């Protein structure tokens, strides 16, 4: 079947099998290997992608559901060489070790900050509870999201 959607700002048209998941399509057909697959049961959040700015678990989301929508992956944030403020904050706060959960974490954080530009710690914890990290113990990620929120608010204020 045919599928058309906007991937990281560009229109994509491709042929696929009806049973293909968004994770399979992005990884195998669209070279978006930054998206990682882990639990395959919507528990870990490693495969998080944004569909119309909302996080979905691409491991169990049929690619066909994305027809006509905007899909954002880790490869699509930041502008070329410059890191997105959330990426920068993750780097500065050592908010990852092995890095396997990181793309999903960053995308979930992006969705959170899109909805709420000044979340409390409790709001961050609540929103991010669907993203697992086995390395860090979460505190550095919480700090990174706090820092990213501040960076993004500053940037917003500086806009002409």
């Amino acid at each position, binding site marked *: 079947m045919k599928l058309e959607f906007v991937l990281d700002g560009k229109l994509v048209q491709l042929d696929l099998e009806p049973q293909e998941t968004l994770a399979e399509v992005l990884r195998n057909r669209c070279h978006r*290997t930054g998206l990682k697959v882990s639990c395959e049961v919507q528990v870990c959040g490693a495969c998080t992608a944004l569909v119309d700015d909302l996080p979905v678990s691409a491991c169990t989301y049929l690619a066909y559901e994305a027809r006509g929508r905007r899909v954002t992956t880790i490869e699509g944030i930041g502008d070329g060489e410059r890191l997105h403020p959330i990426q920068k904050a993750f780097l500065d706060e050592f908010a990852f070790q092995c*890095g396997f959960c990181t793309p999903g974490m960053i995308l979930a954080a992006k969705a959170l900050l899109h909805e709420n530009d000044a979340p409390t710690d409790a709001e961050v914890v609540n929103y991010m509870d669907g993203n697992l990290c086995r390395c*860090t113990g979460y505190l550095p990620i919480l700090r990174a999201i706090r820092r990213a929120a501040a960076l993004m608010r500053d940037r917003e204020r500086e806009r002409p």
Partner: protein
Amino acid sequence: MNGEMSGANASPIGRSDQKMTRKKPGEFHVVNHSVPRQDGVAKVTGRAVFTSDIHLEGMAHAKLLRSPFAHAHILSIDTLKALRQPGVIAVLSGNDLQGIDPYYGHAVKDHPLLAIGKVRFLGEPVAAVVAEDERSAYEALESVHVEYEELPVVLDADSALADGAPLVHETAYRGGGFRGFDDPSSPKPSNICQGIHLEWGDTGAAFPQAAHTIEGEFFFPMAYAYAMEAYVSIADYNDSGLTVYSSAQHPFIVRNDLCKVFGLALNRVRLIVPFIGGGYGSKSYTKIEPLTAACSWKARRPVKLQLSIEEAMLTTRNDDARVRIRTGVDREGRLLALEATIHLNTGAYAENSPLVAKRAANRIIGPYRIPNVKVDCYAVYTNTVPASSFRGFGATQVTFPRESQIDELAERLGCNPVELRQKNLALRGESIHPGLRPLDADVPGDLSMVVEALMDRPLPKDHGRGVGCSASDAGSDPVSSAVVQVYGDGSVSVLTGSTEIGQGSHTVMQQIAAEEMGVAIEKVRVVGSDTAISPFDRSTGASRTTTLMGRAVLEACQEAIAQLRNMAGEVLKTKPENLIIERGGVRFQDQHVRWQDVLRDFFGLSDCSIIGRAYLRKTGDLDLLPVFWEIGCTGVEVAVDTETGRLRLDRLVAVGDVGLAINPAMAEGQDLGAATMGLGVGLSEELVYEGQQLVNGNLLDYRVPRFSDLAPKIDLLLVQNQDGTGPYGAKGGGEGSLNPTPACLANALCSATGARVRRLPLTPERVWQALKERTHKEKNIGR
């Protein structure tokens, strides 16, 4: 930081075996600073390449058929129908392995890469289908027909050790050539995979002298490391040899196992390890690589074998343990004696459990002086998923019982559990285990720091505090080597066999090389983990990398500098002795000559390079094992919901006694990560068998710590006494803070409620039950 400090000015720290001046915190340029991770940009942009992201030209995919029985003879396997399915290239079973040695295992060669003759656990791979794509391989699995004859099973250590128990393995196997386990086979077949006996003093004479003796039975759960990247490898077997990409912690040990399976020379097997998506011990030693390689060998194509998380849960777990332990103190609270019998449920194959058994016996002592000790530890085969390494192995299983019992003794003595520990903790330089390195840490100091940070407020109602300590013989076998290339343009490469598993080893090596060669950190590139390029390294585990590989990199830099000084002598037409080595070059007659200028003038070219190298082995100050003692010292405050039995972590304090933190932020990150895993097995993580079947073998039912488990207050404290054998006195970290954390939780629960729970994890159900029993007891006493 003192920007002008140089090695020549730093105060010397006396070490008997080698003369060296050693910088102290505040005197380093790059080391001891929280520089950003060298893999950071790749990891936050999604550009970091993991094994699952690699695609080779002509690559086929394998899927596995797994046994539905825990113990059964395989009467027949029919693969012909599967072979005729669309897209299928090859089908392998245990009958198709003629021409190779299908058994592997570094400690005991007992593990067939596919079941041969019988299956020994539910989920064991029985056949592999190789096809053009994953779906075709998966769909063809149902066309493989296997006839089984079920056998009686043994599912726990007790039934495996009972008289007349069915044998998991009928024959004795050859050892895997692993140092320390040269002759693992027992004289008569039994389910004992490895027995370890440890004894000093005379416990028989000591216990009658004890004022108080406590005896108890403790259970440590079967747990799953959950590396978020499941096992994956790609093998390409062709005329020039075997190339394997794998998410393997120990590429050189995997290479050795593959050489033996396929009868290939060491230089014909190449292991390439991309970024690893977590391991925590579960990716140490050989896993699916021999099977993937056999698929490629049969299909004559590159083959990828990607397991799911549910399959990973059927591949490796920790050794669950039952520990019977008895400790005695005198009237003054001095520990007199410790006796323990440890039964490890090792599962169907030995994997690393013989070493787990040895470590468990050593690590039950803890950082204490105990004059009389008797420990028996058995790794026992059962028809369950094979057990192997899991972060802190051996120590996790035994620290919970010992640290629980120290609190029980304190209660019996009517003293504070911290005081009782302080009275018995060994001091630096004291022996805690005859024949092993004396303690190289200030554990009483560590404990004082934990207590000070923990006791920062009056304890609220239904809250309790607990502390715990541990000491692990860490570092494994001290064989590591490193190569440093110094280039004519001022850049430097480090070739290391250490794998970047998230712990930050590549950043640490980068920092050490930048510090030693006197170049900016951006000038150093770390090239990792390709056995065709990287010099030998025993393994990436046992917290050994900073200490051993870090030291190898430092020594390789020093060796390069010695060469460069001689070259400078020739270039500057003077004796090398007249040249003073300073940061990034030499001083000659008030002139600083950079290493890159020396190289350019020496060779007459600017793009040439020289090689510095270092080999570490068990000699000199590394002759005495362990390489270092890894200390765990943590404290917690928990809130207990007495109605539901739910524990909530309110405070966590962890000390990382790391000698010197090469990168303090990463060292703290290791401690918090380790303590969080302790929280997992302490509160929720347990693999549950019902009969032959693992019933919670997925992430829906197996609960690991989540964001919402984050403690509201966390203190991560680093102790930097420069008392290790590693570079600048560094020691490893990353396991310590896991080991005592479950005991801290149990001790805190007891201090809050009086309920002593001897079985982990402390699930709400288990705690609620214990609280109910406590109430019954109180009522009975009241009558």
